[in-house]
């Protein structure tokens, strides 16, 4: 896989849309921008001194002259970002991290909540349309996806059966898939990992999440427990890891 070198550049806000209650889709114009699915960006949410760090977001989609992100309104940073208007310049560092380890064969994508951001981008780079298991708290929180065999589940039963995304796994034959790609909250990812028969776990890739200081590998703030002891850096060793690179017992946050 040839990495695309990151850069600290200025993109122009192209559009801001609230696609669901509390979920915002933003597009930016940045001619020449490239990235791989699973890579992320560190976006400066305000030109002033505070907040002192940027915010990390997965590249949801590449556009002919830019990119799109999809995010949950969570706090100060995401509120500031969503209040920008078209034409506003924004400082962006990226693309960062390694991205999914692309390869042939049929993929199973398992996502919870905002973890499904970027699934369409990933699906578009695969040789065969994947099977997608998508979970959310309610129908309102399901993310758009239109590129394969989509099965949804919600905690309140407002779309699909009532339950969590791990409840969809019994209907799946893991041996049918070359790769199981997982992204979402840590307890959900652990649930998927534990419910797969150990013999199938080597197929798993997970996109990890961690509080980040820099996002580009210099601060050591984004530690994720590594199998065999110690830590890996989510931002520069990941964010995508093989499931067996991580210590699932110690990974609690």
């Amino acid at each position: 896989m040839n990495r695309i070198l990151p850069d600290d550049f200025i993109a122009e806000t192209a559009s801001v849309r609230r696609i669901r209650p509390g979920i915002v889709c933003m597009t930016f114009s940045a001619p020449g921008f490239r990235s791989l699915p699973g890579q992320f960006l560190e976006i400066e949410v305000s030109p002033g001194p505070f907040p002192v760090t940027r915010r990390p977001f997965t590249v949801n989609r590449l556009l002919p002259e830019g990119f799109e992100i999809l995010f949950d309104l969570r706090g100060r940073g995401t509120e500031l970002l969503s209040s920008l208007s078209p034409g506003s310049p924004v400082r962006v560092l990226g693309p960062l991290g390694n991205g999914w380890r692309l390869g042939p064969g049929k993929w199973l994508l398992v996502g919870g909540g905002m973890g499904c951001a970027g699934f369409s981008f990933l699906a578009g780079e695969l040789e065969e349309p994947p099977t997608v298991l998508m979970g959310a708290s309610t129908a309102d929180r399901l993310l758009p996806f239109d590129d394969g065999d989509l099965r949804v589940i919600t905690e309140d039963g407002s779309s699909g059966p009532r339950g969590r995304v791990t409840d969809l796994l019994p209907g799946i034959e893991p041996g049918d898939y070359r790769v199981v790609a997982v992204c979402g909250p840590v307890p959900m990812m652990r649930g998927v990992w534990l419910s797969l028969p150990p013999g199938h776990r080597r197929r798993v890739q997970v996109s990890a999440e961690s509080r980040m200081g820099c996002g580009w590998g210099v601060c050591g703030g984004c530690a994720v427990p590594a199998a065999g002891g110690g830590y890996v850096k989510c931002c520069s060793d990941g964010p995508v890891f093989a499931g067996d690179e991580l210590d699932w017992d110690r990974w609690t946050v």
Partner: protein
Amino acid sequence: MTAPSLSRNLWGRRFDSPLILAGGTAGFGRELALLDCWDRVAALVSKSVTLKPREGNPPPRIQETEYGLLNSIGLANPGVNSVVQQEINGSVNIPCPLIVSVAGEEEEEFHRVVEVLEGSPMPWAYEINVSCPNVASGGLPFGSEPSAVERISRAVARVSSRPFAVKLTPNAGDMVETALAAQEGGASGLTVCNTFLGMKMDWRTGSTLIPRKVAGYSSPALLPLVVARVWQVSRTVSIPVLASGGVARGEDVLELLAAGAEMVQVGIRLMRRPRAASELFREAEELLQ
């Protein structure tokens, strides 16, 4: 008094910029090379190195607050032997002098780490970090006690062929007294200073996100606290002062130089802006014109 010049002199070397990348916020330079961010970087301080490997503190290690950043990294590093092989000798050639930061859990560790580093041709100087707030000993027994700082400095001076700065803590003791002790022990400079001890608590539950609870706090709002300390220390000692803390604008660099700093380090601003040195230099230069 005239406005400060951006050309500086440190330990017999001339620099066309006062800006040094602060310890623990620039790794060992590998990532900067990837982004090609060397413009106006006078020198790089590595992350702190200890004798044995340290895996560091459990996550979360970073928490942002309204006006700053808490970090609880805990001196994560693979130990000096492995650092020398993999990061210092074997890594990319960084196009600026390398200052290796040295930390320890006990007094005797600092000079032992320096002894190992003396075996490598790469370091230009050392920074002795007696002030990390993120380890069990708190860095405080060394960093806040002038007699311990003097002993550590003396032991390092005995084994070192290179200049070294002692990085002081703002968290306990009298910084001027500790600075004088370091100078007495043979330090070639002083870094003023390390992060301030901080904590963020959830008032509903009384719990903290960071497992070790207290952490190191950095913020541009702390600049006046650093300016005061740089001024107090630099007018008392005769060795150069490297300012560290609170720099976010070119104006902050000029202020620290005016307060008596020879060089100015940049930490969290670099984490946010990989080209911080270049940007700060340009801003300062424009103000001087």
